[in-house]
């Protein structure tokens, strides 16, 4: 069976919906199967790979930084890159350039890149399937 290529378009910003958790669950399975994965991070999702995200303590939970172990999406993106490579796949994670500029989130996780709608078009053309997870 030939290797599968999957494209996922994301729109939600980190820390504001459950959509991204669903997306990362799907992407994790694809990475474990060694698929080639393309992600087009559009609008708020262009902040997912922003490297200046920081975990924080949670005084309401009564936990320090280590105990709270707050998730950051930049760590999830980095883990996805590593898992894809480990299983023989390729992850091309594109951060929409204009979306990035609007938000000032131009420092990406290494291995992700700046791109444009033309990249999304190319992804669609080259993929076996495309999943769009829009903001509602």
């Amino acid at each position, binding site marked *: 069976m030939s290797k599968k290529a999957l494209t996922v378009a994301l729109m939600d910003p980190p820390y504001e919906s459950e959509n991204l958790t669903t997306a990362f669950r799907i992407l994790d399975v694809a990475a474990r199967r060694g698929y080639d994965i393309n992600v087009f991070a559009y609008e708020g999702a262009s902040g997912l790979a922003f490297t200046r995200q920081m975990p924080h303590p949670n005084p309401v*939970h009564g936990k320090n930084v280590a105990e709270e*172990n707050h998730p950051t999406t930049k760590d999830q993106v980095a883990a996805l890159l590593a898992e894809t490579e480990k299983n023989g796949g390729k992850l091309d994670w594109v951060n929409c350039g204009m979306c990035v500029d609007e938000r000032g989130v131009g420092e990406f996780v290494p291995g992700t890149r700046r791109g444009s709608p033309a990249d999304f078009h190319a992804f669609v053309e080259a993929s076996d399937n495309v999943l769009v997870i829009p903001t509602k």
Partner: protein
Amino acid sequence: MAKKTLNIVESAYRAVMEEQDDTVLWLLAAMQGAGAQHTVVLRGNAVNYAVAGQGVPGLTVGEWKQTQAPKMDRDVLDLIEKRKIPVYVVTEDLAERGIESRELVPGVHLLSRTALPGLFAEHTLVAHW
């Protein structure tokens, strides 16, 4: 004396995995610590927050694992027991979802929709989240 605020929480399970809690309940708990005086009404899908024994496995991405996944029943109990914030649950919304009152964490108050206006009258501000 702080203004008494009635908080009607309807939005539910939004970003709870990434935040490891509900951001509205978290905000109310934090404000209570700063001297605010809050009451909470769970309505709509948010009534499910009061169901005891819920939980979810943490997110896993490759070698990365979430270790502190949210537990919403724990957070509701924290409001009631530690913060002394009264928490009401709308009974009609429970019934519509097939949830029985015996399934709820201890300490929540049951409230009919028809009794809500009476609660409004007891508070200075009403916030609908």
